């Protein structure tokens, strides 16, 4: 990297007199380790400092007042219920000046108000504005301490200060250190400031005329708004590519970033590429000139204005308008880029620099990244004409690159690799096809569930078994392949889900131990509830508590608000919790539900009634003038297979989607009445057909599934279409179950009303009362040591004493002489007997909290015989200072 530094400091072009000083002040000490941390990583690691959602405007102003221009904070405005980016601006007369920019969160993306560029998450947004100002008056910059930090540990250590950082000694401003050049730098900044401070509205956005400020990454432009999925998923990759391309051009082709004189087309394009390089350079070395952006932006704009009839530009534009190819990567091409690192890097740089031939084109190429990758690996498959039109520029750029391109390419590109995986904070990447994530997830889930259910009880005969199996194999292998290739694609939503699942798996944190304890608890106790509904309601309650805990607690790092738009947080958490709690519990729950039903004879009853109704019902089905048609056998078969799929899902929301599909099939088969006015089929027509179809399907397990959905779905989801048809199916099953009764009607009313009341109470409980931490603390895992070693999860109220816990344990472990047993706490390999009046659950919570602050040894509660033991000392309380 020393090489690189020197190349920047020895410019081969004339510079304004202030420039060397300025660039020196911007030039950070370059250490190779420093370069390995990308700006995105720095942002993610430093978020406790700049992400201050709770502070008020006055506090934000107070903090930023002391800071250098470009300093920023993200807070949340309670007035407009949005996140706000507060930026310290240049002051023209020594007065401070702070401007706020609202952050828009819609369509699952983040963007600044007034800008048409949107980002998958907040970090990417900030990272982008650290290198490109777009609607901002200047680029953003992290505090100096973070720019210069050389390791993740260092950044994390500073970040620990949180908001205190701003007042701490860590937050020194580099101008102070480098006072010699401070005034000069200030002067330039002011000069620049005059040029660039414009209201966001006055900045032309390329989509209007296509010839202004083309350095905006068109990947995000609204003209591609319909490709939201694509845009989101590719944003990560595009950032990376952007960096790669600029780096290559920067080192070799750096002319002064000033408005160039009219030049031949080819040359001008190259110059613009270097302008681009300037624009994006600070990604690589943080703290570099934030103002270059505005200067070059200005220059570029002029430049474009002066040549509106640019034929090259037209061709470039034409390319931008080309349809986007499907974003699937060929595995082969991707792998080869990895293996022939140097080689393909070379080619990549060729491509990048050729793209940089027109800045619009350079960035627009990001719109079709898949094409680009295949472009240099498989020229045959992709747009030939595009390549040939770029050939000249490419050749020229290549010549430049070849001449000066040293071997360090690969190492450099690693520096700019967001995805290098060196950062612990960035979770591992998931993968999925972009085209039909939802569909694939469902299929995936079916696969998993099918495996699981191989020896599951209470299964109906499976349909098309062998075909399904072949299909599964195919899908599975293709999923595997895709996942190998598309490692880089992961939406923030998936990241959050993965993160939550990781937390839930890890017994070493409070959340994880909570989830795991609960899973064990339910698995052991699912048959001991009064009714199946009680069981499911307990699980739903626990889901609510966990969700609340995740929202309020600080387990999620970075905070979920920075990854997911606020309106989607609930849905995403719900999904994540379904995955980490319901997935492992699904089988036990369904088994238990079946058990409850067969215990009461309901399943048998249901089966008998279904057959009876299937025989009897069609005749008196529709008293109306124009009875709806009943489904044909083929349709019936389809409905049946849709309903069969229900049991392979763990997520109640996905089950509902299947249920809706089945209802749609029924509705479609009812057909439109040809004669007269097309009377719409309302519930009067639909419900009888539904009852009949369910009876004909002869699938009593649907009853289990309906209860599962009904009780585990988020109560707020029960109002929509899914809720309506779920209620209808529930009602239909109810009728079927009670068909034999003489006064079914009367009985039913009371029954229905009772279950109704239950729902109602649950709604109020689930919705209004905020569960406290105490609620989730009522589980404790106790290890029973008596020769062998067994562990069980025990429910106890939060204030239970050790004595009470001993009694519970005696019952649980069937101890014959409970007087000789006691509860111990094992910590640091020592046993401490808990005095009778201590509260084990409180101790557990306390230890958990402590462990959150700093990792400590695991602890266990042990129920064992009181006996002569060398390592035991009778202490009543836990030593608090360890």
């Amino acid at each position, binding site marked *: 990297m020393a090489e690189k530094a020197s190349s920047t400091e020895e410019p081969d072009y004339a510079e304004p007199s202030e420039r060397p000083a300025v660039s020196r002040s911007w030039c950070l000490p370059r250490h190779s380790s420093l370069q390995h941390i990308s700006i995105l990583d720095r942002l993610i690691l430093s978020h406790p400092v700049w992400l201050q959602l709770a502070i008020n*405007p*006055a506090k*934000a*102003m107070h903090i930023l*007042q002391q800071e250098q221009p470009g300093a920023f904070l993200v807070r949340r*405005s309670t*007035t*407009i219920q*949005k996140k*706000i980016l*507060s930026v310290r601006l240049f002051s023209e007369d020594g*007065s*401070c*000046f*702070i*401007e*706020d*920019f*609202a952050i828009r969160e819609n369509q699952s993306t983040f963007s600044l*108000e007034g800008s048409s560029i949107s980002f998958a998450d907040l970090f990417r947004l900030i990272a982008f504005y650290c290198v490109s100002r777009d609607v901002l008056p200047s680029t953003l910059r992290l505090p100096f301490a973070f720019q210069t930090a050389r390791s993740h540990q260092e950044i994390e250590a500073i970040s620990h200060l949180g908001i205190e950082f701003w007042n701490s000694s860590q937050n020194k401003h580099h101008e102070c250190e480098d006072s010699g050049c401070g005034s000069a730098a200030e002067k330039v900044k002011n000069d620049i400031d005059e040029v660039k401070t414009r209201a966001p509205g006055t900045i032309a956005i390329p989509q209007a005329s296509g010839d202004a400020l083309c350095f905006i990454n068109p990947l995000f432009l609204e003209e591609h708004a319909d490709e939201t999925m694509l845009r989101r998923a590719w944003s990560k990759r595009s950032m990376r590519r952007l960096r790669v391309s600029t780096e290559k051009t920067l080192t070799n082709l750096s002319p002064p970033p000033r408005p160039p004189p009219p030049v031949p087309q080819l040359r001008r394009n190259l110059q613009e590429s270097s302008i681009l390089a300037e624009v994006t350079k600070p990604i690589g070395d943080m703290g570099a000139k934030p103002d270059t952006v505005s200067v070059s932006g200005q220059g570029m704009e002029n430049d474009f204005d002066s040549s509106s009839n640019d034929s090259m530009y037209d061709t470039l534009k034409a390319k931008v308008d080309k349809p986007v190819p499907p974003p699937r990567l060929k595995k082969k091409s991707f792998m080869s880029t990895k293996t022939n690192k140097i080689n393909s890097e070379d080619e990549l740089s060729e491509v990048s620099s050729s793209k940089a031939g027109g800045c619009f084109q350079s960035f627009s190429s990001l719109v079709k990244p898949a094409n680009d990758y295949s472009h240099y690996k498989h020229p045959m498959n992709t747009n030939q004409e595009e390549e040939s039109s770029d050939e000249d520029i490419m050749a020229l750029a290549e010549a430049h690159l070849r001449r000066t391109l040293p071997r360090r390419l690969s190492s450099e590109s690693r520096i700019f690799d967001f995805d290098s995986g060196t950062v612990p904070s960035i979770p591992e990447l998931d993968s999925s096809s972009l085209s039909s994530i939802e569909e694939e997830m469902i299929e995936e889930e079916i696969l998993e569930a099918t495996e699981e259910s191989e020896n599951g009880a209470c299964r109906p005969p499976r349909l098309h078994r062998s075909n399904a199996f072949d299909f599964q194999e195919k899908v599975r292998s293709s999923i595997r392949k895709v996942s190998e290739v598309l490692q880089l694609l992961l939406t923030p939503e998936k990241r959050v889900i993965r993160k939550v699942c990781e937390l839930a798996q890890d017994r070493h944190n409070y959340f994880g131990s909570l989830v795991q304890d609960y899973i064990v608890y339910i698995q052991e106790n699912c048959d001991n509830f009064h009714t199946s509904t009680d069981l499911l309601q307990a699980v739903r309650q626990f889901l609510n508590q966990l969700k609340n805990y995740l929202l309020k607690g600080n387990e999620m790092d970075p905070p979920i608000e920075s990854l997911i738009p606020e309106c989607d947080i609930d849905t995403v958490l719900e999904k994540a919790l379904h995955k980490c709690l319901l997935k492992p519990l699904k089988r036990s729950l369904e088994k238990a539900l079946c058990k409850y039903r067969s215990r009461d004879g309901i399943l048998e009853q249901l089966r008998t009634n279904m057959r009876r109704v299937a025989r009897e019902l069609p005749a008196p089905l529709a*008293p*109306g003038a124009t009875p709806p048609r009943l489904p044909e056998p083929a349709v019936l078969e389809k409905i049946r297979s849709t309903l069969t799929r229900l049991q392979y899902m763990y997520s109640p929301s996905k089950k509902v989607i299947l249920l*809706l599909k089945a*209802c*749609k099939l029924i*509705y479609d088969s*009812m057909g439109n009445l040809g004669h007269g006015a097309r*009377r*719409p*089929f*309302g*519930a*009067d027509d*639909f*419900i*009888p057909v539904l009852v009949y179809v369910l009876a004909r399907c002869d699938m009593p397990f649907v009853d289990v599934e309906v209860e599962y959905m009904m009780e585990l779905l988020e109560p707020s989801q*029960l*109002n*929509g*279409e899914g809720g*309506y*048809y779920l*209620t*209808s199916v*529930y*009602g239909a099953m*109810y*009728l079927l179950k009670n068909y034999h009764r003489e006064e*079914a*009607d009367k009985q*039913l*009313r009371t029954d*229905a*009303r009772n279950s*109704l009341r239950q*729902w*109602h109470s649950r*709604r109020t409980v689930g919705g209004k009362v905020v569960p406290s931490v105490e609620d989730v603390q009522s589980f404790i895992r106790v290890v029973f040591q008596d020769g062998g070693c067994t562990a069980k999860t025990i429910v106890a109220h939060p204030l239970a004493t050790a004595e009470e816990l001993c009694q519970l344990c005696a019952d649980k472990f069937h101890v014959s002489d409970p007087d000789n047993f006691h509860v111990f706490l094992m910590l640091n390999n020592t046993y401490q007997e808990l005095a009778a009046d201590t509260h084990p659950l409180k101790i557990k919570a306390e230890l958990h909290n402590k462990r959150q602050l700093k990792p400590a040894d695991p602890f266990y509660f042990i129920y064992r015989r009181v006996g002569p033991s060398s390592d035991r000392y009778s202490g009543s309380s836990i030593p608090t200072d360890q």
Partner: protein
Amino acid sequence: MALRELKVCLLGDTGVGKSSIVCRFVQDSFDPDINPTIGASFMTKMVPRNNEIHKYLIWDTAGQERFRSLAPMYYRGSAAAVIVYDITKEETFHMLKTWVKELQHHGPQNIVVAIAGNKCDLVDMREVQTELAKNYAESIDAIFIETSAKTSINISEMFEEISKKIPCVEPCTNDRPSFKLRPLQLESSSSRCC
């Protein structure tokens, strides 16, 4: 604008035209394709109302005797119930009275009840007099309106009445839009110093 979801439940004998009323209401919108629902028994429609957008989630019920017992599941959590009768069939009006009683005893508290005498285009066949029904509606403090799904009379008016009668849960929501017009200026001017 704040979006507010309102669950509306349709009750009434079979054949009185419950689903026709909904279809007329929903499909009279400018864009008939905006409602890609599975069938006419559940439909939604958004209507702007006093700085709020009301999204009606309309739950239809089966009117046949056999399915009447399921009604509680449908009207649970409803903000409003529309009880429909057919002005050309007196027995449907009697049935309406039992629905009202049922709602009064078991329905959600504060549910807004609207009584709709449908098929008012068939004047010649009228069996239920307007005055009679109107007096009854007043006695139970319900909205009363005679409608015709066929000729689209009073359909949207009925829902408008319902919207008016539904209590505003958060009075503060009325203030929001006035804030929202210039949120940035407000914020930034307050954060400027010196």
